[in-house]
């Protein structure tokens, strides 16, 4: 097994002014499952391809197990990759697909057969070995692609949105299987996804990428509870965190005096030193409703989503859009005005540029 280190990795494609990756420094620990999370175009796949050796960085280095492999061809990096569209060779059977890497490396027939059978058995596709990829379902293809990666016992697994083409139920199922597989193999895995659910449930650590830059690395709990900036804050949690832009007002003398004003909301906030434009983040589950004029402000109900175990209410708080997530079925009417409560213990403070203050 091995660790992966990215050191000041920068990738810019010809012609495009903006770099696909900008000075990315990141370490994946030996045996860790690290998730690269970000929206499409954030550079996460580019980073993965750099690790695989399919892409060459403009600057910076890739290290696998402390060895600089920046200029080493993919074949000699001992990494395996699972592609978003699986990339199973359509003209080969499942067995031939899984055994391909062993075959081109000159393994013996018996060795290949044994290891293919092992990998297939492990992923529950032993009875599909003679089929062609186009005769498999999406989930089966995914398992075959995983088996192909596994069979080589690589130092690092690179997974590029491997579940994105599957339907929701299968995704949840395979998610758990992948985690179990990771635990069983003890392998180092870099998992690229845009799905925060996958990131939260699978990653031992999450690295959030945005527009080619690394915003934060940390355990799911860290990243969720103490997002480094507004972008990270909004990329985890559904519905996304409310971020209210407004002004801090008050005197330095009395902490009780200090208020944050945004739209119709007046939220008492413990601001250490800051004055002027700031942003406040509050997750929907920390917003409550009460009688009009009894809370931090009032809001008009725009949309009510009854989900059974909870009710999601979209509000207009004096021009500020706000989402509240209320436990259970709550009887609120669209078009009515309600008072709003904000749980002060769970406020995230960001400066005007979006960086966390505390």
């Amino acid at each position, binding site marked *: 097994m091995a660790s992966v280190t990215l050191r000041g990795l920068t990738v810019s494609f010809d012609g495009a002014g903006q770099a696909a990756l900008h000075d990315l420094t990141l370490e994946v620990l030996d045996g860790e499952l690290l998730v690269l999370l970000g929206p499409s175009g954030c550079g996460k796949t580019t980073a993965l391809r750099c690790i695989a050796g399919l892409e060459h960085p403009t600057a910076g280095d890739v290290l696998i197990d402390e060895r600089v492999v920046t200029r080493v061809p993919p074949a000699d990096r001992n990494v395996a990759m699972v592609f978003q569209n699986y990339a199973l060779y359509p003209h080969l059977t499942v067995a031939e697909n899984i055994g391909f890497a062993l075959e081109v490396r000159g393994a013996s027939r018996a060795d290949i057969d044994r290891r293919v059978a092992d990998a297939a058995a492990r992923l529950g596709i032993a009875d599909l070995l003679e089929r062609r990829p186009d005769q498999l379902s999406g989930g089966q*293809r995914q398992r075959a692609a995983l088996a192909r990666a596994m069979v080589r016992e690589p130092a690092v697994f690179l997974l590029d949105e491997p579940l994105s083409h599957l339907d929701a139920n299968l995704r949840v199922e395979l998610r758990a299987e992948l985690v179990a597989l990771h635990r069983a193999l003890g392998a180092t895995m870099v998992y690229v996804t845009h799905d925060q659910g996958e990131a939260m449930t699978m990653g031992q650590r999450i690295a959030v990428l945005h527009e080619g830059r690394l915003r934060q690395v940390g355990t799911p709990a860290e990243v969720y509870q103490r997002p480094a900036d507004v972008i990270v804050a909004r990329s985890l949690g559904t519905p996304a965190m409310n971020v209210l832009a407004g002004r801090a007002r008050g005197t330095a003398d009395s902490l009780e005096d200090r208020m944050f004003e945004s739209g119709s909301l007046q939220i008492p906030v413990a601001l250490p030193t800051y004055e002027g434009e700031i942003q406040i983040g509050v997750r929907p589950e920390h917003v409550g409703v009460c009688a009009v004029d009894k809370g931090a402000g009032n809001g008009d109900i725009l949309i009510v989503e009854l989900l059974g175990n909870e009710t999601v209410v979209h509000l207009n708080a004096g021009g500020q859009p706000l989402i509240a997530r209320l436990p259970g079925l709550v009887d609120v009417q669209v078009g009515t005005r309600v008072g709003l409560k904000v749980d002060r213990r769970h406020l995230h403070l960001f400066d005007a540029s979006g960086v966390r203050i505390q």
Partner: protein
Amino acid sequence: MNGVRRRAVITAALAALVALAVLAAARWEEGRFARAGAVRIARSTAAYFAVVTPASRVDSAELDLTQLFAQARALATLPGWVWPVEIYHGTAPLVDAGGAPLPAAELERVPEWRDGAALVPLRGRSDAATVVGVVAIRPARPRGVAGLLPGWGLPAALLAVGVAAAVAGGRRPRRDGIVAALILGLAAYADVRGAARRSTNDWLTATRLLMQEAATRLPGPRIRVTLSALTPLTLGAGAGGAELVWADSTTQEPRRARVRGTSVAVVAARLGSGRWADLRTSPAEAFTSVWLAGLLGLALLGPLGFAALQWGERTAPGEVREAATAWAFLAPAGLHLAVFSIAPLLFTLYLAVHGPSGGFLDPVRPYVGLANLRAVVRDPLVWGSLGTTALYALYVPVSTALALAVALVLSRPGRAALVLRAAFVLPVMSSGVAVALVAQSFAGLGARDWLGSPRTALLVLMVLSIWTQVGTQMMVFLVGLRRIPGTYLDAARVDGANAWQRFRRVTFPLLKPITLFVLVTGVIGAAQMFTYVYVLTGGGPLHATDVILRRVFEIGWDSLEFGRASALSVLVFVLLLGVTAMQFKLLAREGRVEHA
């Protein structure tokens, strides 16, 4: 008017229009046969006068006027002779002496048909080039009961119109309309066939009468009439010619018989006491099958139009407009296809089963069945050229491999690759003749005459073809390479495959359908090669480059055997069809490999 009545009226009008068209077409063809019959009788009659009339004692190029006069009068009153006839000596009518003289200009240049009469020049005996008069024959009017009957066409037309109206009114099933239309087509065809039959019978009867008369009038000295003396009378027979043989039949009515496997029309002529001869010719009705198809097709336009009307009623106006627009857009392409693809194909098929025509004036070609094909298959040169073509086609795998190699090298982006790609495509865009001429100048270089030697000439053509084909095939491969998703190659690289393994195990298998396509189209193209052979070698030396199309060309245009050339074309077509069918089968199997 309510809807049903209105529809019945419109349909009846449509049916009447179609019926009129069918009748008119049939009538026109009947008239053509009547005229052709009269022309043939006139030709035989002119030959008769030339045979039986002694030359003038004054001018050997002229016919003896007294004799001619007597024989012309005699002919007009011959028992059984029903065709109004006039003989002009110079421009003067002999039979009806008071009649209008022939315009002098028409003696100079005799029109074949004028004012309902067939005109044929009358030539003197010793000098066949000199026109001494004109024979004019009018078609006989049918007499007796046959003359009163209007033919089958008219009643069938009335029936078709009536049934169409009934179908439109919903009183009869649509099938009846189709049946009535078919009956109309068949009836009209029966009329045409009858006219064709009549024209042959008329000629046989008239020529029989002329021959029997000639047998008694041949100028002496003679003891017994010989067939060769009467042969000139058969010259009017037209397509297929005629023959005169001694026989022992005594039926003086024209009949049909089979002689040596073909249908012939026969009449027996009595050429003296107990001496009978059979006059045989090919029956005109044997060449009317095209009219059967044509008239049936024309008659079916009625039900077709009715179906279109019904469809138009059932369908929303917008959809009708849309369909009309669609057809209007399709029409030019359809017309192009019909005129330049389907029609030549059908004509080739027609030519392939018909013999040569009787010349420009008599374009009827006798049906010969598979005789052309048989002749072609027995021709050793055809087999030789098939072998040569197969040998020549061996360049295709070579050019395909080259094209694939070039495409692999030039598939990388970059300006140099772009320039090189253009260089490879250049010969594709040049005219084949120009390329061939350039090649000719190259082949003439050096000590050896590459094109002049039977051992190297085909090789030169193959190299030339490789040079011009690689560009096109490379372009196809480039497109095929671009269609292979990059992730397969990425996956192979991560899997540890080197460049050769990536090509051998991933790229090439995924290109298989493309490779197959290039190979098969290449083979088809090779089978159709003609330009280089035509320009460079003319099939030589010693048939070394005599490819199959060059053979078709030679049979057609050098030997003027269009029937055989067409038969060979059809054979080549069938062979290529087999190759193409094979391609489709292989492609269907290989094409299953989707990019999963």
